[in-house]
């Protein structure tokens, strides 16, 4: 106390100045919102800085226990993620025809799990297989156009030959306006363009004409959109039109597809076999 008294009597003016300033500072930090929030933020930051070190220390001591907990949790999550059947059951969509011959096509919806577009013969895999009624030689269509043909299946997956295949795919397609049909192939240069050949030169063609599937192959139903005519020229070798078709479906971003199931396929094949048999018999 004596020390304080001596200090004050020697530097009285400075002391009273500091006292008044301290009062002002206390007022500033207790009454003004800006400074209050600043001091609150600083306090919180200091607090978390200190307690961060303390937490680090205690966390280190608990590492073994935490590790065990994590392993248990991981196991449960892996069981959840990989252990179960991931795919949902397909919903069948029915198409009714009015001809009276009963239903010809049903569709199985699926999702693409692997896709490629940059090879010479491209394939993709979908999450539907034998269990869902998907078998080889079924057509696969996408929401905006054709996608490919199933070539192999397992219980729950199917391998599909993409329409972007140079050697393996030939699809019957026709011009929607005139109805003339030709063969659709891919030449491997651009994932958006296919080529329609075998259409006679006298058939009128316009850029922008719609190209649809023809329905003569029992793989795709008739009238599925393939794309639009992007350009045409006469093929000098064959004398037919060589029409470039821009696919309406972007094969690179494909996700949802439908597998076309032809209910009358066996019947159609049987009658075509008799034709073959007839030809064979005539040749004999």
């Amino acid at each position, binding site marked *: 106390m004596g020390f304080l008294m001596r200090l004050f009597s020697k530097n009285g003016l400075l002391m009273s100045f500091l006292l008044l*300033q301290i009062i002002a500072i206390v007022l500033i930090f207790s009454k*003004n919102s800006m400074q209050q929030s600043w001091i609150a933020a600083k306090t919180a930051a200091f607090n978390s800085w200190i307690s961060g070190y303390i937490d680090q220390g205690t966390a280190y001591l608990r590492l073994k226990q935490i590790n065990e907990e994590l392993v248990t949790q991981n196991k449960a999550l892996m069981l959840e993620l990989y252990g179960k059947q991931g795919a949902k059951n397909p919903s069948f969509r029915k198409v009714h025809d009015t001809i009276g011959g009963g239903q010809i096509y049903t569709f199985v919806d699926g999702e693409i799990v692997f896709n490629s577009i940059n090879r010479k013969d491209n394939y993709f895999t979908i999450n539907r297989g034998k269990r869902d009624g998907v078998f080889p030689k079924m057509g696969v269509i996408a929401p905006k156009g054709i996608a490919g043909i199933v070539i192999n299946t397992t219980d729950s997956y199917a391998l599909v030959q993409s329409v972007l295949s140079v050697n393996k795919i030939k699809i019957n397609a026709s011009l929607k306006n005139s109805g003339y049909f030709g063969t659709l192939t891919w030449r491997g240069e651009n994932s958006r363009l296919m080529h329609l050949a075998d259409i006679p030169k006298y058939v009128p063609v316009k850029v922008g004409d719609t190209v649809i599937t023809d329905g003569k192959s029992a793989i795709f139903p008739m009238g599925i959109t393939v794309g639009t005519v992007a350009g045409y020229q006469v093929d000098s070798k064959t004398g037919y039109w060589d029409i470039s078709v821009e696919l309406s479906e972007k094969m690179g971003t494909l996700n949802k597809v439908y597998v076309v199931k032809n209910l009358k396929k066996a019947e159609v094949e049987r009658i075509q076999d008799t034709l073959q048999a007839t030809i064979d018999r005539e040749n004999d």
Partner: protein
Amino acid sequence: MISRTLFTDILQILFLVALQIFVLNRIRIFGEFTPVLYPVFVMFYPFFRNKFQFLILSFLIGLAVDAFLGTWGINAFATTAVAYFRTLIFRSSTDTTTDFFSFSSLQWPQFLLFILSSIFFHQLLIQYIEFFKFSRFFEIFLNVVISSLISFIFIVIYTLTFKIKQRV
């Protein structure tokens, strides 16, 4: 010349605070700057009076302005600081080295420099404490310079009106 006592000091404080709050704070020059006049009490308080009384009265006038503006402590802090460092400011803005001052013996340029540096110091403290953001350093500094200049003009008008220089 009226002799100054504690009573006249308090009357002057009341007058200056009322002038500051009810008149000057309603003026918005260029839309955002307010002239500050009340530090004239601190600047022109006679040098030979009781220094403790001077400090406490300076604190009180700042606090009174704070009470009306709702900025508790900010003006009090700045005004008390100006009061305490007034001798220092006076000595650095004039050539004199003695402890005894009178304004009537000063040259006008030195007198104006004293006013300008006092009000600048005052505004510097107030604005930085009020905004309290170093990220806006230059913005606030510009604000300080402009409002000091505007206040300076008002203070000079005040000194001319009341003939401060001749009387103190």
